[in-house]
Each structure stands twice: as structure tokens, then as C-alpha cells.
């Protein structure tokens, strides 16, 4: 059937609205000059009014970084990044670290409204009342370019002794905690991108849950890159003290731009005895256009340390955005009986590339880990699952189960699975399952014959494929993620 002019029009409309977060916000920004050197590191530290020890730490990192080389082992390719051709600090000009929402630039609030993030506590509260407490409240920290602009529900959390604020604020108000844990999971010598982050990180979220406290609401950070030619280097640090519980969610968006932008974040989690941290990510950075121009380089280091006995860290990620994703949320299972989980859905379409997976390092006795990875590739995208399961000699009775499933849409994309297994304890039990499947023309026609449109059919089939992972997301985000899965694959068939 020949394409009708209206169809062409419709298709264009759909394609253009595909990345609906691609707007920019017109705000005067306070931007550091382009380039990266010790002066820039000092500039950032000074802007943040940081203590001497933190500046020293940054400088040490920067000096190490200069001796390092970009990792080459990932199955991704991109032109060399000119690290001197970017701004390493950009902040909305009006005010750094506003005291209340009323001081936040109204343009910024509008941006977050467009993104659908409820910043105004009143609104959230109104929402909660309306729904008779059915949907739990969410406390949000919003990071715009380099600066945390507002944290909601702070007062309520403070009553319980929970600290949830921008990391720059934590440096000022809780230096002992930051000093004790910063870099304790991801040291400043860790890897190229993490080390760069140590030198130039600008903001991020800080969470501390005191002993025995169960955080009563989801904590959430929303990251947004707005300024052109800036990198975003946020740093998140979450500590759950003995017996504490916290569920944390991060979401990310960026405007459409033709240049690639670097996002090199570091997330560190620390779980003490009997503590649980659930960390969920819905990553929807701008993926670039259909020809592969533009998009975010998402080079992120995420690691959690299960320091205490019976502690648990669970990573759930839905990765649909970014031109390139390089990311391996990992667990160091140090405490006896500690548990690590990794649930991942990664979708790559058009020219997107993703090399993602996890590392489970079993150190303590009877440590257990579960890995469920679902990769979906469409268009000309390439995707690799790369995972390490390592059992150290002392990890008596360690167990791991890994399941890696790949789904291909069309015949120009690729999926690869690279599992590394190292076991140095005979009592360990490690299982690995992997499958690769394709959405077939039969399945699509079957759905369409039952009245389901082609795009809805793809979304239905893919959601079925990822169900195991999506059900791990907090309820209120699961629906959002399901929609996102559909949107990311628009135009991938036909």
C-alpha cells in the first residue's frame, strides 16, 4: 500500500513528539569557562564553599585522572571526547542553593512542571489527601545542570532523623558523614569517568537513614541537563544505618541538542547490618535523533556496599535514553548473608549503543545475588550485557542466579552477552541462563488481527518480555516505565 500524504504527516508528527523532554529552558546561567584544569577544580570547590579536605580530595583525583586513559573494553564506539571543550560548572544564575521554593526561579519551576515532577509540597500533599493516602508521598530533590534547586518534604523527614538534601548542602551541614563515606565505595582512583567525577562533581543527592528507621516515602532525584556544552557530574551518596530501609528513585532528562553531552555520575550506596537499600533508575536522557546525531553519553559508576550482616542492596534500572550507555551498577557483598540484586531493562533504538550489566562480588558467607537482565534492541542499535560474578575464597555457600534475555526487533540490530564468572570457593553455586528472541511478524499480525495497533502490539510484547523487571519498580513508576517502553520503540517496526 502506498503511503498517503496524511500518513506521512502523521508519522512526522509522531516522530517529532517522540522525545517530549527535548525543550530547553531560557535561564541565565552562571557558567565556568570551558576547559579542565586545576583552576577549574578549585573554581568549582570555591563556588561550593567547600572545606579544605574536599578540595584536596578533588585535586588528588584530578591528578590521578590526568594519568589515566579512557577504558576501551566496552563494545561501544564514539569519536574521541575533547574534555577541554566543555563547561564543568553551570548553575542557574539567580541563586545557588535557594532557601525555599519561593526563591527558585519561576522558569525552573515551569521546567519541572513540564517534566511532570511535583516540586511544590502543597501540590503533593493535596494529591495525597485526594487519593486518601493510597499513593505514598514522594520526596523529590531536583538537580538542574550542576545545582540542586529544591528538595521537598525535608522538614517531615528531618523529624525522623532522615537526612535528604543536596550533597553540597550535606558537605556544609554534615561534614563528618560525608567525609566518612564519600569515596568509600567508589574510590577516587576507581576508573576514568568516576575519577573525573571526583574531581569535578558539582551536586547530587545525599541520603542518610538513621538506625532502625524505615523511610516512610520514596526518595527521588530528578536530573536535568539544560545548558549547552556542559557535562553533568553528579554524585549521590546513600547510607542506610543498621536496620534502616530506603527506596530511592532517580529520573533523568535532557534537551535535544546536536552535540553529544557527557554525563559521568557516581552513585555510592552503603548498607549496614540488616539495612536495605532499593535503588531504581528510569533513565531517559536524550538518545540522539534517528540518524544518530546528538544525545547523551551516559558513563556512570554505580556501586553499593553491603557492609553489614543481612544487608540488602537492590538495583532496578530502566534504561531507554542516552546515545551511549556505559553502566554497571554493582554490589559488594561483604556482610555475611547479604543480598545483591540487579534487575535491568535496557532498550536501544536507532543508533543507540549500550554496554551495561552488573558486578556481584561475593565476599561474605552465604551471600546471595540475583541478576535479571532484559535487553531490547531495535533499529541499528547495538547492545551488550556485561556482567561479573566473583566468589572470593571466604564466601562459603555463596549463590548466584543470572538470567539474560535479549529481544531483537528488525534485522539490523545486535545483542551480545558477555558473562564473566570467577569462583574461588567450591561450595558456591552459580547459575547462568541466556536467551535471544525476536519479535516476529507472526506475533505482530496476530495482535493486529485482534484490533491492537502495531505500535501498541510492540509495546505489549516488549512489556511482556520485561515484566519480571518492571514489577520490581515502585508502583507509581511502573506505569510510567511501561509507557516509556512503548515510546522508546515508536517507529521501530514497519
Amino acid at each position, binding site marked *: 500500500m502506498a503511503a498517503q500524504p496524511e500518513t506521512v504527516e502523521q508519522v512526522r508528527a509522531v516522530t517529532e513528539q517522540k522525545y517530549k523532554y527535548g525543550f530547553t529552558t531560557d535561564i541565565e546561567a552562571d557558567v565556568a569557562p570551558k576547559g579542565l584544569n586545576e583552576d577549574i577544580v578549585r573554581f568549582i570547590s570555591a563556588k561550593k564553599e567547600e572545606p579544605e579536605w574536599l578540595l584536596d580530595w578533588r585535586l588528588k583525583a584530578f591528578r590521578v585522572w590526568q594519568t589515566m586513559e579512557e577504558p576501551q573494553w566496552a563494545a561501544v564506539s564514539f569519536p574521541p571526547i575533547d574534555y577541554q571543550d566543555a563547561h564543568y560548572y553551570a548553575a542557574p544564575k539567580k541563586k545557588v542553593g535557594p532557601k525555599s521554593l519561593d526563591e527558585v526561579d519561576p522558569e525552573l519551576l515551569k521546567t519541572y512542571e513540564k517534566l511532570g515532577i511535583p516540586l511544590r509540597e502543597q501540590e503533593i500533599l493535596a494529591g495525597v489527601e485526594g487519593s486518601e493516602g493510597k499513593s505514598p508521598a514522594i520526596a523529590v530533590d531536583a538537580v538542574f545542570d550542576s545545582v540542586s534547586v529544591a528538595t521537598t518534604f525535608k522538614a517531615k523527614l528531618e523529624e525522623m532523623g532522615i537526612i535528604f538534601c543536596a550533597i553540597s548542602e550535606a558537605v556544609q551541614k554534615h561534614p563528618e558523614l560525608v567525609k566518612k563515606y564519600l569515596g568509600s565505595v567508589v574510590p577516587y582512583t576507581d576508573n576514568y569517568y568516576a575519577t573525573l567525577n571526583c574531581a569535578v562533581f558539582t551536586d547530587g543527592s545525599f541520603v542518610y537513614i538513621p538506625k532502625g528507621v524505615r523511610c516512610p516515602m520514596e526518595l527521588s532525584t530528578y536530573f536535568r541537563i539544560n545548558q549547552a556544552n556542559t557535562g553533568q557530574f553528579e554524585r549521590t551518596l546513600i547510607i542506610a544505618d543498621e536496620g534502616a530501609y530506603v527506596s530511592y528513585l532517580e529520573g533523568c532528562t535532557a534537551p535535544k541538542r546536536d552535540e553529544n553531552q557527557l554525563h559521568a555520575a557516581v552513585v555510592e550506596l552503603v548498607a549496614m547490618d540488616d539495612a536495605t537499600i532499593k535503588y531504581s533508575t528510569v533513565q531517559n536522557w536524550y538518545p540522539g535523533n534517528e540518524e544518530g546525531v546528538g544525545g547523551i553519553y551516559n558513563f556512570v559508576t554505580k556501586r553499593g556496599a553491603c557492609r553489614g550482616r543481612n544487608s540488602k542492596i537492590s538495583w532496578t534500572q530502566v534504561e531507554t535514553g542516552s546515545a551511549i550507555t556505559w553502566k554497571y551498577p554493582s554490589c559488594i557483598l561483604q556482610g555475611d548473608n547479604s543480598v545483591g540484586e540487579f534487575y535491568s531493562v535496557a532498550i536501544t533504538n536507532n543508533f543507540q549503543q549500550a554496554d551495561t550489566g552488573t558486578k556481584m562480588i561475593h565476599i561474605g558467607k552465604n551471600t546471595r545475588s540475583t541478576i535479571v537482565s532484559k535487553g531490547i534492541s531495535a533499529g541499528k542499535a547495538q547492545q551488550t550485557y556485561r556482567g561479573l560474578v566473583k566468589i572470593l575464597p571466604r564466601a562459603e555457600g555463596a549463590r548466584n542466579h543470572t538470567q539474560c534475555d535479549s529481544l531483537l526487533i528488525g534485522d539490523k540490530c545486535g545483542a551480545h552477552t558477555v558473562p564473566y564468572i570467577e569462583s574461588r570457593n567450591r561450595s558456591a553455586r552459580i547459575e547462568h541462563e541466556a536467551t535471544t528472541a525476536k519479535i516476529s511478524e507472526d*506475533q505482530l*499480525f496476530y495482535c*493486529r488481527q485482534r*484490533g*491492537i*495497533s502495531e505500535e501498541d502490539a510492540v509495546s505489549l510484547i516488549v*512489556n*511482556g518480555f520485561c515484566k519480571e523487571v518492571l514489577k520490581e519498580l515502585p508502583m507509581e513508576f511502573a506505569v510510567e516505565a511501561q509507557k516509556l517502553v512503548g515510546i522508546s520503540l515508536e517507529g521501530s517496526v514497519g
Partner: protein
Amino acid sequence: MIEIKNLHATVDGKEILKGVDLTIRPGEVHAIMGPNGAGKSTMSYVLAGRDGYEVTEGSVTYYGKDLLAMEPEERAAEGVFLAFQYPVEIPGVGNTTFLKTAINAIRKHRGEKELDAMQFLKLIREKTKALGMNDEMLKRAVNVGFSGGEKKRNETLQMAVLEPKFAILDETDSGLDIDALKIVAEGVNALRSPDRSMLVITHYQRLLDYIVPDHVHVLAAGRIVKSGGKELALELEKNGYRDFGASEAA
């Protein structure tokens, strides 16, 4: 009313249908019989709008509308239902989710209000009960791990839920033993109604012992070469398709 006129269709550039004429009135059950390779399945796919089945000549008028101009999902929404010869497996997608998505897509197309979870559950309970099925099948992924009989029963359930005006049953008897065949046929018979037409495509007469057609047509080498009443099926059973110039081995 469905009017098929001089329908020609090609698959991979090869002409399979070479001028089919057929008129089906509301409530009528027509059977199409024919040797392998006569174009039976092609006919069902052409009517359902499958990609790769290209109509080169002729028309299909469906209750006054040009059926061939519609996308497969539009045809479904307009009441065309194809019971597949080989129902497709969709791992991870629950039968209930699938049916709910389908019925709501169709309702939306018709400008009707979508069913909420409770309304849908009520409807599906009603339908499974009417067909004498247990609802264990609803909890499983679409057709995954279903036996041949279960797959065909599932098709019947979908038909009952989606309430088509025109149902095409493509080789519904294939892969069924006689007991399963009886159960499926009973289900189909329960769905016969004065405003629902059916086109039953089959190679063998035995299905027509259970689903008794009003008219029988012989499709051979892309054309309807003979039409008659239900007794024509018996005649074919006795003499085979050799009289119609097709080899059994095709």
C-alpha cells in the same frame, strides 16, 4: 453482507488467487474446501489484511465499506475475526492482558467506553462459562505451552469475547484429535447467530460434521470451481479433489 468480487492476489509475485467471487449474507456459514495449495490460507490472510499478500485486482465490500483499504486492526475493529490455523505464542503477555488490550482497542475504535478491570473480568467469566472452559487458561501467557486443543479453544474464547460480525476459521481442525475437535466445534456453534457470518476453511470434511455449513465451495487453483449445499462436502470426501484438476500431492 460481504461481497468478494473477482479477487486476485499474489504472494512473493506469484499469483495465488485468480478471481474469487463469493457473497456471504449475515448469519450464513460458508465452507471453503480445497486441496493443499489451492489458496485457502491465502484467502483468509487477504481478508484479514496480512502484509505480503498483495491484492492485484478485484474488490471486497464489507457492509458497504471497502475492506481492502483498511489496516488489519481496523478490519478487526469493524468485526473481522480470523481464527488462526497456528495461533501465535506471545511469551510474558498474559491471556487476560491480551484480551483486555484487544477488546478495549476495538471498543475505542467504535467510540465505545473502554472496559475497566471489573467489567472486563465479569465479561470474561461469562464467556468462559458459556464455553464450558475453566479460567486457568486465562492466567497463562498467550498460547505459550498450550496444547493444540487449548490453542484452538483459546481462539474460540477470543472470538466469543470480541464478538465479530464475520469470523474466518482457518483450518480449525488441524492438529486436533476427535475429542478436541468436538469441543472446539461446540464452542463455534454456540457463537452462531443471525447477525454473524462465518467462513470455515478446511481440507477435510470431518469438521463440517460438527460445524454444519449453509453453503460449501470448492477452491481449486485460485478459483471457486464449484458451489453447493452441505452435501457437496460429502461428495468431496468420497471422490477427493481430483475432479478439480488439482493433484493431491500439492
